[in-house]
């Protein structure tokens, strides 16, 4: 059986191998991707972005619980930066999601940026397709911890969640022109760690950024470590999924 057939039957190893091939030998993987693309229907892709350490991975671990309760298979691509000097990377997002590793219905893949700017790696959009082929009902993409103008995630995600934390109140002003513009949903996580009023007021000033009709970006407060606010977040994500309609093809990000 060929690699693609195996992937389509839900073989994790085959899917993992194809993702590596896309990362290591992008040109020779094109043919397989073409075959794969003809066999899949795009699924809802959720982008989780925000500054370093705000709790993106912890939130994803919680969202996985919600999806699994509904028996949805979840693919996760977690991006961390490569060192510009050595090319090495310490991929640590997965630590927060390890409770899901024994679950056959969850596929988590850590990816290093390998010199790509913008918050994702070059292979991310294509890896979304691989996880779709594997059977994911939803694919979650965690960007590297971003500053402000790393907005590549908007090219792969249908729904973008921008995660912030209470301490960022003043920094928000400076982020105006960046990731704040791409948020469909804003999460203020770690509300156990400080007053959120300042951040909320600043956030109100900058939203809504992205031009859209009939959708007002929501602000949701969470404590990811305790699991509070997650139901509300999950609900809002589902609302946005329905608002989006058909998941997009992610063609644009595919062109390179």
């Amino acid at each position: 059986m060929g690699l693609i057939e195996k992937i389509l039957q839900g073989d994790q190893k085959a899917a993992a191998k194809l993702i590596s091939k896309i990362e290591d030998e992008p040109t020779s993987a094109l043919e397989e991707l073409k075959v794969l693309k003809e066999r899949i229907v795009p699924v809802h892709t959720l982008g989780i972005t925000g500054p370093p350490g705000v709790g993106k991975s912890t939130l994803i671990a919680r969202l996985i619980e919600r999806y699994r309760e509904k028996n949805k298979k979840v693919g996760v691509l977690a991006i961390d930066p490569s060192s510009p000097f050595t090319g090495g990377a310490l991929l640590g997002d997965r630590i927060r999601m390890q409770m899901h590793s024994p679950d056959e219905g969850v596929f988590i893949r850590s990816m290093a940026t390998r010199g790509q700017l913008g918050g994702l790696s070059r292979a991310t959009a294509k890896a979304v397709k691989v996880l779709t082929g594997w059977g994911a009902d939803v694919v979650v993409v965690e960007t590297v911890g971003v500053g402000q103008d790393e907005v590549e995630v908007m090219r792969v995600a249908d729904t973008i969640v921008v995660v912030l934390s209470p301490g960022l109140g003043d920094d928000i002003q400076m982020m105006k022109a960046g990731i704040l513009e791409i948020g469909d949903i804003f999460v203020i996580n770690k509300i156990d760690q400080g007053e959120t009023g300042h951040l909320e007021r600043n956030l109100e000033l900058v939203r809504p950024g992205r031009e859209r009709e009939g959708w007002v970006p929501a602000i949701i407060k969470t404590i990811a470590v305790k699991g509070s606010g997650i139901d509300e977040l999950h609900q809002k994500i589902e609302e946005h999924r329905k608002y989006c309609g058909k998941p997009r093809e992610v063609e644009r990000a595919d062109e390179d």
Partner: protein
Amino acid sequence: MRKKIRVLIAKPGLDGHDRGAKVVARALRDAGMEVIYTGIRQTAEQIVNTAIQEDVDCLGLSILSGAHLKLFPKIVKLLKKRGGKNILIFGGGIIPSEDIPELKSMGVSKIFGPGTKTQGIIDFIKTQIDADGKRR
């Protein structure tokens, strides 16, 4: 382009000391590898599923709890079952030298004792992976 070496550093067993594992993870990163670190108290299932999904070339297990003769075989067996038999496995931690032959016979390529220089681990991985191109 040279393929990236991907390594999973895992800490099975019940003890909670991962200083050594973290030092190794950082050293391998600084040597240009992509290192997945998954934290302490990992079960065999968690480690093996992670190794498969992350398509690692190499799995480093750190064990201080003395449960190596129980944990290593479990992980090696499960890994083979899941199709990961080409993954290079090494171990580190406190492992009595009389146990090493048994571990090697079950498929652990090398055991690094306490006080091992990280450069030794880097050299070992690079040499093994260069020597065995078909691992990829």
